């Protein structure tokens, strides 16, 4: 399976290498992606919960900002 490409820039030699991830790098990449997906899901869940509360009390997000501002 083709792994994602990465770039490595050595600032001492100014050498730039574009290559596929190694297996070890791919593991870290997958871990990062999983963490990002979890964060995204959490943020979306928060947004949905927020919208539900606003709907229940009959306010828009802008109206709430005005009150809190």
């Amino acid at each position, binding site marked *: 399976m083709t792994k*994602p*490409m*990465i*770039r*490595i*820039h*050595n*600032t*001492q*030699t*100014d050498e*730039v290498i*574009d290559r596929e*991830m190694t297996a070890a*790098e791919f593991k*870290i*990449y997958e*871990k*990062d992606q999983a*963490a*990002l997906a979890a*964060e*995204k899901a959490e*943020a979306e869940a928060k947004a949905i919960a927020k919208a539900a509360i606003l709907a229940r009390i009959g306010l828009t997000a802008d109206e709430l900002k005005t009150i809190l501002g």
Partner: protein
Amino acid sequence: MATTTNYGWTTPDDTALVKDGAAAIRTLGSSVDTTTKNLNPSTTLGDIEYRSSTANTNTRLGIGSTGQVLTVAGGVPSWATSSSGGMTLLSTTTLTGANVTISSISQDYQSLHILITGVTNATSDGALRVRPDASTNNGSTGQVLGTNYHQFGNISLSFEQNMLRTSANNAFALDIFNYASTTTYKPFTFSGFYESSGPTDQYVIGGGGTSEISAIDSLFLFHGGGNFSTGTVRIYGVK
């Protein structure tokens, strides 16, 4: 025997004999020569002199090396390397691929000033992140904007917000202090502008610190949306 007022050179008395004139002139000339050499001990191009602790005797100071400045040490002048501030561009890197590692960062500065501009993504919106010290997922950073927002091992320049993947209208400045230390944690600050989905303009300012004591000699950049399309990272070393 008569002497001169300032340097005390010996001159013939009014009653001295003419026959002793040659010796008197020779003695005077010799004294003038010695004094002149004591006042001007230069031997080499670029030498300068300053007064020593002995009257009428200067000390030679050889020229310094390129970039050095004249300073004072131990109560006398000397040449020394300037300790004034300034920024040096260490690298310019174009962002591409799933992640980018900027490695072998010089350890000769007090702090790093990092400018990141024009970041877009090939796949989807996402948060832009910088991990001090490359590809391992060790260590941790914390950052604050109003309330605690913690990212394990990463500095999230757009916090939990996703940057609009197609918009290159973004710019971030990140400063990492004391980055070359091998004994202390490293504080950082950042600020920036980007467009989130909407698009809506977003302005961020934040800071925190790493809980790693090893020196930072690389930066690892990645984007929550997937592969970078564009973007430029400039790293400056700050004295």
